[in-house]
Structure formats: C-alpha cells, structure tokens
C-alpha cells in the first residue's frame, strides 16, 4: 500500500500513467460519470455554455495565481492559491463536459491550451489586471457573488452533469465570497489609507460589472430549456449583496451596475487576455506530447 506517505506514491509503478510529481497524474475529470446529453438539449449550445462558465473560472484562476509569491502575507497567498485551485477544478469539469456535449471528444486540455484568445468566452472582469490587493479583493467579491448566484440556480439544471458540478461548486464559492467579504470589511473600515484603496478599487472595477449580467443568445436559449441560467435574472440579487457588504464596510452604496453589454461571451476581449493565455499555454505548446 502506498498510503503511508505521499512521496511513496512517486516511487511506485504507475503503469503507463507517467508522472514526475504528486498530484499531476490527471485523468479525465469526468471519468465514469454518465455524460449523455439530455434529450431535446442542443449539444453545441450546451458545449458553448459550459465553455463560458468554465472559461470564467479558468481565466480568473490564472489571474489569481499572479499573487503566488507576491501576496501581502503568506496566509493570503495560500488563500488566493486555494481559491484558484477550486476554480481550476470547476473549469476542468466544465471544459470536459463541453468536449462531450459537442461530440468533438476534445478533453479539458484541448480547451485550455489550444484555443486562441478570441475563442475564450469568459467575461472581461476575469482577465482584468490584478491591480493592488484591494482591487483583487473587490474583483473576487464581485465575481464570486455573481457566480454563486448563478450556480445556486444551476444546481437544478436539466443537465445532470451541470447540476452536479454546480451543486459542488456552490459550497466552494460560498467560502470564496466569505473570504472576500472579510477583507472588504477590514480594508473599507480599516485605516484612512486602506479605505482610500478600497474606494479606488470600486471606481476601477465597477465599470466592468455590467457585462456579468448581459445575456448572450446561448445563455438565453439554455435558460429557456431549463439547462442554464439567464445572468440578467441574478443582477438584482447580486447588487443587493454587494451593497450590503460595501455599506457595512462603511463605503458608499455602489452605483447601479452599468448597462449590460455582451463582450467576452462572444469572444471580444481586452488586451490583457492574450498575455495571460501565453503564460498559461506556454509549456503545453512548446512540448505538445509531454506527459508529467
């Protein structure tokens, strides 16, 4: 048995499952899950919808890892890296689902490493520059609140795989939002300097929030079929949550969300996404057949 110590697993036979480090022997994230697309559901739409939700998580996670080795405290680095890891887990499941739904059989790596920026479907706020810690916290607060609202509803999706992924993710997202809330309160209601940084973060991030509640035609069709969630539907709830948090942090009540305009969901991105993906995809593209 290998269980006595994690490193003992490294020295044992793994058959064809080659690896060089603990935790890197990834297999299909959905191995053994019944992945039939429910009757009457359009597979191509479902695949695009899964890419939208998966790309939000993947790109946000990659952006969060900018903080690794560079966070204000070791504990915050560990927290942000853990949040990124949860999001990568969600992205893997969703992108694996996308490859089954459209019949292409592409795996999660094909989506993560072999698409260009214009093929990514994440909202632009996920790719926005990390900024200072206050901005990172506000971005996390906004994204986790919106994602939690959507995924809570998605837990009753007609697609059983999407429903299961969402039900699992909801528990994780609640922790992410709690973390962001705790720091928003400390910074907003902290020193004049920390408060100034939070005020600046709200001013920087707010113009990008409208897109989170814009409905792409695929989202509208998926929502109509009971498979997806129309993001416009959660706008009020998310605004209420953010207002509650920011006012408790003694900051001004935020302005209404800007007009919802579809952008990243149709492949329109800021100049920030390409360099983020270059870094994410570098090793896979330089060593396409490598296993580790």
């Amino acid at each position: 048995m290998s269980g006595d110590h994690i490193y003992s697993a490294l020295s044992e036979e793994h058959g064809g499952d080659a690896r060089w480090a603990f935790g890197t022997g990834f297999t299909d994230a959905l191995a053994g899950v019944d992945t039939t697309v429910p009757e009457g559901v359009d597979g191509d739409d479902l695949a695009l919808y899964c890419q939208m939700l998966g790309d939000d998580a993947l790109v946000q996670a990659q952006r969060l890892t900018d903080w690794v080795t560079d966070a204000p405290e070791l504990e915050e680095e560990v927290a942000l890296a853990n949040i990124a890891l949860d999001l990568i887990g969600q992205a893997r499941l969703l992108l694996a689902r996308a490859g089954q739904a459209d019949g292409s059989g592409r795996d999660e790596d094909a989506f993560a490493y072999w698409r260009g920026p214009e093929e990514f479907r994440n909202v632009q706020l996920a790719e926005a520059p990390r900024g200072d810690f206050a901005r990172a916290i506000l971005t996390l607060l906004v994204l986790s609140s919106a994602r939690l609202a959507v995924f809570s509803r998605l837990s009753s999706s007609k697609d059983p795989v999407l429903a299961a992924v969402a039900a699992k993710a909801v528990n994780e997202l609640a922790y992410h939002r709690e973390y962001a809330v705790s720091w928003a309160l400390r910074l907003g209601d902290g020193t004049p300097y920390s408060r100034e940084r939070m005020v600046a973060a709200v001013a920087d991030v707010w113009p990008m929030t409208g897109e989170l509640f814009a409905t792409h035609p695929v989202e509208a069709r998926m929502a109509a079929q009971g498979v997806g969630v129309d993001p416009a539907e959660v706008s009020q709830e998310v605004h209420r949550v953010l207002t509650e948090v920011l006012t408790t942090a003694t900051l001004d009540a935020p302005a209404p969300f800007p007009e919802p305009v579809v952008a990243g969901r149709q492949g329109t991105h800021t100049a920030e996404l390409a360099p983020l993906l270059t870094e994410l995809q570098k090793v896979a593209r330089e060593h396409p057949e490598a296993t580790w």
Partner: protein
Amino acid sequence: MVTTTREEQRDRLWKAAAAVTDPELPMLTLADLGILRRVEIGDEGTARVWITPTYSGCPALAEMRADVHRAVRAAGFDQVQVHTELSPPWSTDWITDEGRRKLLENGISPPGAAPRRASGSVPLTLLPTRTVPHCPQCGSERTEELSRFGATSCKSLHRCQSCLEPFEHVKEI
C-alpha cells in the same frame, strides 16, 4: 479452485477499496473520509468502484484513483474500473466517527456540522462565521483563526490562545 459467492466478492472488493488511505491525510482511509460511495461486481467479473471528490480541484483525487486501482488488483480482481461520482456533493458530515477520532489523535481538529446552504445571505462580520474549533492538543476553546485556507483545500489554519500551538482544522463543507 475456491468458489465464492457474489456477496463475498463484493465484500472483499469493498474492504480492499475502503482500506486505501488519503495521500494528504494519510491517517484516514477512503471509508473514514466518506468518499468511497459504492462498489459492484459486473457481469464479466469486473470490479467497479465509485469515489467522489472532496473539492472540485482536489489534486489528490487522481492519486486516490490510482491507489484504489492498485489495491483492488492486489486483492485479486483483474478487471478494475474506478469511477467518479459527483452527485450528491461530498460533505464533511460523511467523515465517520472513527475518522474524526483519528484526526484528533493526529493533532488535526475534526469538522463540526456542515453549514446549511444559504447562498443569498452573506455573513457580514469579522467574527467567526462557522464553528470555532477546540485545540486538538490541549482541548482549549480559546482558539483563533489564522487563515480560512490551509495547506490543502480541505483545511484551515488556527492557533490555540491557551497553549499557543498552531493547528489545522478540517473545514466544514
């Protein structure tokens, strides 16, 4: 040749899979953790095992899958399939009493009751929003949270204000 009934085989399969340990919490077996969901012997004699991930991104899952595969083969099953079951999502409430005892014995504070899901409401306080764990070393109730996220997805970091020792706590989920 020894003939065994389907039930005996199934029992042997369950025991083999249940004894596999978690690579990150090696004092716990998959059965202690509650991530071993069910086992089945297929018509062709294929041993099928279902496990569920703790967190979506838990990197130990691939390792556990490989360990289950190896353990079940070592128990005499030639054809082995290890499946992932996502629904219902794993909860720390599924950690057995035996598992909780082992955690405590190893200086890790076991989880309290999992929170009810209330996604609409948001806790607006800096005071602890979940169970305050007791110190696994000295039993003191006076402990503080250092970080809600620890060395692995499933744990948070704390410090005892009585004996001053830091400790890990398995987060309620």
